[in-house]
């Protein structure tokens, strides 16, 4: 595939993205919301029995060593990877072109690569009340022992499918379908009003 310059990517959140403090922030801002706009969001899938080979390829290409086990993940230096389903992984890079970096290494015998960079929107929620706000949205356990650092979860919020990675002790990255992202963002802002939020 010849590399061609892509048009500049527009954020689907743009009309509803209002930097600044909002909601009940007189006593302080307890969550910070932002769009991280990674250049590459990939979905990698291994055929049954090929999972370890795929994990090794992810390590070679990105330098991220995925831990064994369901939902295991890691996030470091602008790159992130996590398992979200049996044999399936989301791999994210701040920079564009990660799909090309994988080209040739994921052979048809091992699995598949799907470039979702234009199909997903990445939203970050951080701060002391991030777990609280997330727990209002999703029926899963966000406590650190149940949802360790780097780990990924797939779940949904009113039928909007979401992949969530814990990228910090009080920070989560949420990947949602781009076409639903603005609606999800508005809901997340409303949910954050009670604790006071800042959009960066």
């Amino acid at each position, binding site marked *: 595939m010849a590399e061609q310059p892509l048009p500049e990517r527009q954020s689907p959140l743009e009309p509803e993205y209002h930097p600044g403090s909002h909601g009940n922030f007189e006593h302080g801002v307890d969550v910070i919301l932002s769009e991280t706009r990674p250049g590459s969001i990939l979905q990698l899938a291994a055929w049954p029995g090929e999972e370890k080979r795929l994990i090794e390829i992810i390590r070679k290409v990105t330098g991220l060593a995925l831990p064994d086990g369901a*939902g295991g993940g890691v996030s470091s230096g602008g790159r992130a990877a996590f398992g979200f389903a049996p044999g399936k992984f989301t791999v994210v890079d701040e920079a564009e072109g990660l799909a090309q970096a994988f080209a040739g290494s994921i052979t048809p015998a091992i699995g598949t690569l799907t470039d979702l960079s234009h199909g997903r929107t990445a939203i970050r929620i951080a701060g002391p009340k991030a777990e609280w706000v997330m727990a209002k949205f999703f029926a899963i356990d966000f406590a650190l022992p149940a949802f360790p650092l780097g780990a990924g979860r797939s779940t949904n919020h009113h039928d909007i499918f979401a992949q969530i990675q814990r990228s910090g002790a009080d920070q989560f990255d949420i990947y949602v379908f781009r076409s639903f992202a603005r609606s999800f963002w508005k809901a997340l802002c409303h949910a954050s009003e009670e604790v006071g939020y800042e959009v960066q």
Partner: protein
Amino acid sequence: MLITCPYCGPRDVIEFTYQGDGNRERPQPASQDLDAWNAYVYDRLNPAGDHSEIWQHSGGCRAHLRVVRNTITHEILSTEFARGGHKSADNRAEDRP
């Protein structure tokens, strides 16, 4: 009702989609045994008690699961990946390299 997905852990039933009775056996696609096809399409055990079912974790990891559920109490007795140790639902052999 909570179903414990083997991959995701315990999740609310709202994340799952019922995919039907897990006791059916689909005839080979070329089969002309009308009784076997009739049984596959229409015959159900409909027990009052433990029932083997196929569910999909459609709002999570999207894996297909074999779930044993008590139809009276809704207690979930076991969950496992549908593909593990079972024939594929459509009886096709795994023909990948």
